[in-house]
């Protein structure tokens, strides 16, 4: 199932998981140790993050390690560019107001 990237950050636990694995790749058990929720809950979050393609899995020996998809995080930056746009619009409006006031 293809999910929207913004679903990934809609949940505080998933944001915390993203922050954790941004530093180093981790196994589901190591990730779960950081939370008070059940392992099942953490693996459900990991499933959603995987479906959003924000994290990738890698098999190392018997363990599966989760790490962050850096390219995907860049989509978030494009999102922030829209936030920049609102300020641009706002300031352009202020430019017009200022030039009107100066007359």
């Amino acid at each position, binding site marked *: 199932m293809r999910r929207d990237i913004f679903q990934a*950050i809609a949940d*505080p636990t998933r*944001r915390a998981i993203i922050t954790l694995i941004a530093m180093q790749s981790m196994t589901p058990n190591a990730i779960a140790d950081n939370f008070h929720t059940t392992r099942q809950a953490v693996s459900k979050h990991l499933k959603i993050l995987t479906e959003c393609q924000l994290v990738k899995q890698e098999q190392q020996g018997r363990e599966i390690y989760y790490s962050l998809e850096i390219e995907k995080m860049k989509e978030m930056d494009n*999102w*922030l560019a*829209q*936030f*920049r*746009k*609102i*300020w*641009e*619009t*706002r*300031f*352009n*409006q*202020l*430019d*017009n*107001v*200022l*030039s*009107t*006031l*100066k007359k």
Partner: protein
Amino acid sequence: MNNDLLFDFTVDKENKTVYIHREFAADLSLVWDAYTKPEILDLWWAPKPFLSKTKYMNFEEGGRRFFAMVSPEGVERWMVQTYSSIDPKNHFKTYNTFSDKDENLELPGSDWNYHFSEENGKTKVSITIYNESRERMEKQIEFGFKEGMTAILENLQELLASLSQK
């Protein structure tokens, strides 16, 4: 438009801070008025086709601006800005929160620092926005995103025409 004027916009997600710098081709006193007088603020604060509607504003330390961003469908998003410190024509600081229409605050909020300086006939405004919570920052960004998208779709010529008629 106004490509010769400085515009800097950076988001520091780690420190939950947004930095904005912008120059304006006007005297400092005029720019100061545009940020501190409700009748001027409402002319530009909301990106078209949103409207800024100030219910009341007491620009003094401890005073508040209680206002709404109104969507084209008439949906009001109320906000409260409390002025925590004011140094006329230099600096002021606000604490911003979303609220309901009865002025009940939705905490946490964000700290906004405004600095004004003038050089070579241009006025530079520096804004630092610090969010107590990352969730709040994302909510703010998400809200801005919706407005921003709507604003992009708006015909710019129409905007210019309506402003010059005022």
